[in-house]
């Protein structure tokens, strides 16, 4: 029973992380319908930037964290500006293959600089965040994940719901031409959605790094795990991404715990194929509102 509860907790935490990682992906998809295959590399960029700041530059945790977020924001902005802006109006297939190329490029850079070994952050989370009750053990990092994750969700939820820039971003996702006719800066919106997505990705990268250690290959693999998550949740639903993430996370940990550890990493993709077969728009994906 304890094993079950422990798996449940692990699954939810891991899944929550997947959901967070997927959030950035969904944001890009919603605003510009680009499937970003470089998402894992954005995660890795954040994780390694934080690592470099903490270990090489010896910065305290909080400033390092904030600088990393800012750095990721700028990175997303620059990536959009340099690589995606020239492709506006080109067939989508080029844009998607461009992200495949970017993924490989980023991965190469990170491997050249940091190598393929497993790195770890110094231990910095306060231990009071951990919960120990009987056999059940919730390490501090999971609690921290939950807190950071919920904060981000709340902040972005409010941002998209109420701020004017958030409304503009949604309007572009909804009907680009109409947004353009009203003077919404569509290009700015694209750049901003990449920047925010990179920021969220960087943050998830850091948390993933705290839990699993920081390794380029692992992080980019998680970037691909975003696909089962978003297909399950519905490609264009941010809430769906979180719930899809939790389901995938639970599936993974339970398969790992009860069936076989090696099956763990494939289960999401089996689910993906299954979902594509039976419910292609996912659990929360919007089908077009057909009238109008």
């Amino acid at each position, binding site marked *: 029973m304890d094993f079950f509860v422990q798996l449940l907790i692990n699954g939810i935490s891991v899944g929550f992380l997947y959901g967070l990682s997927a959030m950035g992906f969904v944001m890009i998809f919603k605003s510009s319908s680009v499937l970003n295959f470089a998402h894992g590399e954005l995660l890795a960029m954040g994780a390694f930037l934080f690592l470099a700041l903490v270990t090489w530059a010896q910065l305290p945790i909080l400033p390092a964290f904030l600088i990393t977020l800012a750095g990721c924001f700028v990175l997303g902005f620059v990536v959009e500006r340099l690589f995606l802006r020239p492709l506006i109006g080109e067939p989508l297939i080029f844009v998607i293959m461009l992200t495949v190329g970017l993924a490989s*490029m980023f991965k*190469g850079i990170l491997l050249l600089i940091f190598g393929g070994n497993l790195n770890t952050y110094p231990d910095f989370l306060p231990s009071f965040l951990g919960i120990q009750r009987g056999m059940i053990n919730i390490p501090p990092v999971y609690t921290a994940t939950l807190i950071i994750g919920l904060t981000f969700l709340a902040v972005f939820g409010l941002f998209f719901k109420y701020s004017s820039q958030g409304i503009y971003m949604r309007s572009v996702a909804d009907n680009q031409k109409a947004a353009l006719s009203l003077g919404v800066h569509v290009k700015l919106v694209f750049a901003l959605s990449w920047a925010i997505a990179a920021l969220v990705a960087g943050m998830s990268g850091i948390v993933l790094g705290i839990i699993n250690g920081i390794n380029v290959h692992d992080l980019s693999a998680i970037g691909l795990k975003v696909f089962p998550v978003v297909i399950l949740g519905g490609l264009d639903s941010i809430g769906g991404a979180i719930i899809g993430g939790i389901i995938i996370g639970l599936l993974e940990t339970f398969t790992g715990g009860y069936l076989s550890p090696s099956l763990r990493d*494939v289960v999401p993709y089996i689910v993906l194929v299954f979902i594509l077969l039976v419910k292609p728009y996912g659990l929360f994906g919007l089908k077009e509102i057909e009238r109008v």
Partner: protein
Amino acid sequence: MKKRTLRFHPCGNYKERYDDELTIFESDFGRFWALVGLIILFAVVPYVVSPYLLYVINMIGIAAIAAIGLNILIGYTGQISLGHGAFFGVGAYAAAILATTVNAPFLLAVPAAGIITALVGMIFGIPSGRLKGLYLTIATLAGQFIIEYILIHWESLTKGTMGITLPTADIVGFPISGDKSFFFVIFIALCLMTWIAINLVRTKFGRAFIAIRDNDRAAEGMGIPIFRYKLLSFGISSFYAGFAGAIWAFYMISVTAEPFNLTLSVEYIAMVIIGGLGNIAGSIYGAVFITALTEVLRWLTDYLMNSGAFATSGFNLNLAPLREFVFGLAIVVFILFEPRGLAEIWRIVRSSFRLWPFSY
């Protein structure tokens, strides 16, 4: 029989029928040079180049077959596959299993492996074909991981991480082993597969693929059953991958699952983009480019490491990440600056030669 005159460079558009538009060679000039090229390829190349270079050329040939298959899918049908590397692996394993368990001869095992791969590919094509957009890309991504897993973990069939060792291939009693005899096998196969592909895209199937690529809704409106054609295109592309994989398996003698990862799939995508989307000859250029690039990088890293430039700093320059980076860069640069790839560059160069000095 109608007497035909040789045509060299027509100084205008003299095409009178649709058939003229469909010819592969615009002029007899092109036909002539293609023939010369083939003669040099088969009669000269294998006898003059060094064994290592011959090995590289063979690898180019195998990669070109797989890349042509991927180009039919990406370049002509407008669907992206991220599982081409895994399908290549399916072909390799299928050939290995056929050759070891039922003693299938080379000539049978290779096409059979291609067909098996096509069937496996179509399984992953089914969930995506019903949907518009880029779901095939995602499904093939899943395919890549699931196939990789099966190749490693279905031990009774694939011998797991041990891998399978293949018997020496032979064609009606003549054993083929060594780079030179494989050179002929690979390049005859490449010529055949290129010929099939070029002619395929000129048929109703090819036109249907192109229609789906350009506007699937309009294609459907014109009565093209999109799902069937997408699946067919995907099957053909997987067949090419499996075919190439099978030859690769016989050439390499032993097969393990490691090479068939996502990186290989991305490599094939790079070949197709760099070569030129929707251009069969372009895939061959792409295969040459990528394979040659790998060799240049290999040489470069070896040279730098051995020259001692980094020996003192403890900095370890590895081939793999550099290769990864350069491939990514190549994809990005080509998409941004010459999305039609090397084939287009080649066309521009050629026509500027032909039209020189009066380019208008």
